[in-house]
C-alpha cells in the first residue's frame, strides 16, 4: 500500500504531462486548472468524484513551506514525512516554495482564492500577520480539532492567547524562531549588539531581511522602541533608521533566504538572520576557515511564528488535519526540531529531544531561557489596512 500510494502521484503528474504533450489546446485549458491537476495526481480523487471520507484520511496532500524547516536525510528525503507516511498511509508532497509571505501571497494564494478556486495547497506555512490577513479575507478553512488527540492539547500555553485565534482553529504553529545576528566569528569575532546591523564596520558585508517584521522590528529595537507595541511614530522612526543606514551604504543586500548563500561564499559576514538557518543550514556546511554563529542581541531580537494553515478549498483537508495532529505528538515534533533548531511550539518535545540528544535540550535557541524570551519581541499586530500601508512604505524605504 505504501509503495503504491507513493508512486501514484508521480505517475499521475507524468501521465498528465504526457497527455498534454499529445493532446490539443483544449486538453490544456481544461487540465491546467489546479483542481484537475490535483485530481489527476491524487489516487481516489478523480475529477468530479466525491472527496475521500472524512473519517479515514488517505491519499496525499500538498504542503508549501520555507526551506530549512524539516529534517533532511543525506539522500535528500524527509525522514519525518516518511515515517508519517508509514504510520498513516498519507503521502506529503512537501515543497519548499515560500520565499516570503508577500511573494507567496502574490504568486500562489491571491489569484485562485480571489477567483473562488482552490490554491492547489492543503497546508501553507505562513507567518502570523499573513495568517491574519488571510483570515480576515475569509480565505482559510477552519481546522477541525474535534477529533484530534494532540492538537491543541499539546500546544504551548504562550500560543493559546493569540487574540486572532482564540479557539486555535485558524493556525497551528509549526515553528517559532528568533531573528537576530548571524555572523562569521572567524572574521568578525564575538558580536552581541543589534547595533552591528547598522554599523559601518560591516558596510557592504552585511545583509538585512526583506520581511517588514524583521527589518523594521530590528530597527525599532535599535531605536530603543518595543516592536510589540510599535505605533505609527515608532514605525516611522524605524524606517528612518533603515533609510539612514541604506544611504550610508551599509547593507549589501536586503534579501529573503538568499543571505545564506551570501554567507556561505563569504561575501557577507554579518546578517540579520533566522536562528535555525544558522544552526541548521550554515554551520553544517561551513569551511574550516568559517565559524558561523547566531546570537540574540543583548538589546533584543524578533520572535516570529510560522503556522500551518489550510487555505480555502483545500482538496484533502482531512489528510492535512491528520498531519497537524500527528505533528503535535511530542516525539514527532522532537524529530523535526532536533534537525531544524527552531523554537518548538509543542509541549513535551523537550523531554523527547533529550532522548535524541541531551545537548540539544540545553540549546537555548530551541528552548530559550526566560530571560531570552523576555527580549524576543513579537511584531505589533495592526489592522490589515494599516499593515498594507506599512508594507508599501517599507517597500519604498528599501528602494522598491
Amino acid at each position, binding site marked *: 500500500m505504501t509503495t503504491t500510494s507513493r508512486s501514484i502521484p508521480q505517475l499521475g503528474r507524468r501521465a498528465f504531462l504526457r497527455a498534454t504533450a499529445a493532446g490539443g489546446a483544449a486538453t490544456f485549458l481544461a487540465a491546467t486548472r489546479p483542481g484537475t491537476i490535483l485530481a489527476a495526481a491524487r489516487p481516489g480523487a478523480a475529477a468530479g468524484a466525491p472527496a475521500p471520507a472524512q473519517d479515514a484520511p488517505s491519499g496525499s496532500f500538498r504542503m508549501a513551506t520555507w526551506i530549512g524547516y524539516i529534517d533532511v536525510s543525506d539522500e535528500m528525503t524527509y525522514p519525518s514525512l516518511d515515517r508519517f507516511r508509514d504510520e498513516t498511509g498519507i503521502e506529503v508532497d512537501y515543497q519548499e516554495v515560500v520565499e516570503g509571505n508577500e511573494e507567496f501571497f502574490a504568486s500562489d494564494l491571491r489569484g485562485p482564492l480571489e477567483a473562488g478556486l482552490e490554491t492547489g495547497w492543503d497546508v501553507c506555512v505562513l507567518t502570523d500577520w499573513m495568517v491574519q490577513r488571510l483570515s480576515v479575507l475569509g480565505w482559510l478553512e477552519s481546522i477541525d480539532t474535534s477529533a484530534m488527540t494532540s492538537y491543541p492539547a499539546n500546544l504551548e500555553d504562550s500560543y493559546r492567547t493569540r487574540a486572532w485565534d482564540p479557539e486555535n482553529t485558524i493556525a497551528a504553529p509549526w515553528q517559532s524562531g528568533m531573528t537576530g545576528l548571524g555572523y562569521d566569528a572567524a572574521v568578525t569575532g564575538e558580536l552581541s549588539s543589534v547595533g552591528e546591523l547598522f554599523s559601518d564596520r560591516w558596510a557592504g558585508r552585511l545583509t538585512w531581511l526583506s520581511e517588514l517584521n524583521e527589518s523594521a522590528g530590528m530597527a525599532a529595537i535599535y531605536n530603543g522602541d518595543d516592536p510589540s507595541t510599535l505605533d505609527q511614530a515608532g514605525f516611522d522612526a524605524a524606517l528612518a533608521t533603515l533609510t539612514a543606514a541604506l544611504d550610508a551604504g551599509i547593507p549589501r543586500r536586503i534579501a529573503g533566504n538568499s543571505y545564506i548563500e551570501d554567507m556561505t561564499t563569504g*561575501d557577507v559576514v554579518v546578517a540579520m538572520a533566522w536562528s535555525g538557518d544558522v544552526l541548521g543550514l550554515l554551520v553544517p556546511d561551513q569551511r574550516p576557515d568559517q565559524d558561523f554563529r547566531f546570537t540574540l542581541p543583548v538589546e533584543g531580537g524578533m520572535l516570529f511564528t510560522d503556522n500551518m494553515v489550510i487555505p480555502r478549498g483545500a482538496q484533502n483537508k482531512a489528510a492535512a488535519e491528520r498531519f497537524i495532529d500527528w505533528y503535535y505528538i511530542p516525539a514527532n515534533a522532537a524529530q523535526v526540531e532536533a534537525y531544524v533548531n527552531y523554537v518548538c511550539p509543542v509541549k513535551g518535545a523537550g523531554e523527547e529531544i533529550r532522548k535524541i540528544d541531551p545537548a540539544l535540550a540545553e540549546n537555548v535557541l530551541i528552548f530559550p531561557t526566560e530571560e531570552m524570551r523576555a527580549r524576543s519581541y513579537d511584531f505589533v499586530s495592526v489592522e490589515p489596512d494599516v499593515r498594507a500601508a506599512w*508594507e508599501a512604505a517599507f517597500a*519604498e524605504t528599501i528602494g522598491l
Partner: protein
Amino acid sequence: MFAWLRRHPSATAYLLLAPGILYLALFYVWPTVGMFLVSLETGTIQTGYTQSWNFGVYPQVLGEYWGDFLNSILYGGAATLATFAIGFPLAWFVAFRGGRYKTLLLFLIIAPFFTSFILRTISWKIILADNGFLLGTLKDLGLLPDETRILATPVAVIAGITYNFLPFMTLPLYVALEKIPPSVLEAAQDLYADPLSRLRRVTLPLAMPGVIAGSLLTFIPAVGDFVNAELLGNPRTTMIGNVIQARFLKVSDYPTGAALAFILMAAILTGVLVYARLAGTEELYGARAG
C-alpha cells in the same frame, strides 16, 4: 474562393493578417490600455481596487521614484555605450579579419544566448565574488586592496547588463559592416591615410544602420531590466524594473506598478518613434534579421 481572392487582392492580405493582428490587438493593445486604466485606480489589497480616475498618481510616482528612473537610464545608457565599445571592434574584426574562422567567431558571440539568462547572470556572481576566482586571485597577488568588491555595486549591475545584451549590439553591427563592399574600404584607404579618419568618415557612417539597431536592441531591454540589479546590485542600485516588479509581485500595489510601467513604456516608445522617424522603421530592426 481563389478566383474571388484574385479579384480582391487586398482581401488576401487582410485574411493573412487577421489572425496575428487580432492576437496582438487582444494581447498587446488591449492589456496596454487596461494597464493604463488600472494605474488610475485607488484602493488596497484588503479593500480591493476601484476606478477613481486618479491621474494624480502620475506626478506622485514620478516624484517618488525619479531616482529609480534615473538609475535605469544611467545604467542602461552606460551599458549601451559599453556594448558599443566592446561590440564595434569585435564586429569589425569578425567582419574584416575573421577569414575562415568567421562562423566560429559568430558562434562564440551568440554563445551566451544558448545559456539561460538567469544562469549566466549567476555565473557572474561566481566570477565576481569578493574572494572568488577573479578578485580573490588579484587580492592574493596584492594587486587589489582586500576590501575591493565589485558585486553589489553599480559597476556590477552595468557589467551584468553589458554582458547580457552584448550580442544584441554586436550582431547588427556585424551585419552592417559585412555589407560594406571591400572596394569602398580600398577607396577609403587611398583617400585617407589615417585609419581613424577612415573609421570616422567611411566605416562608421556606412555602419550607421547597425549602430542604430544595435543601440535600440540593447537600450530598450537594458532600461527595463531588473534581474541584473536584483542579482548583482545593492539596495541603492534598484532600477525602475525592480520597483515595478516588487509593486506587482511583492506588495500587490497594482496602481503604482501600472503607472510606473506605463511611464516607462511611454518614455521608451516616444524616444524610439522619434528615432524611427529619423532612421526609418525598416532600417531599425531589419539589420537584426539580415
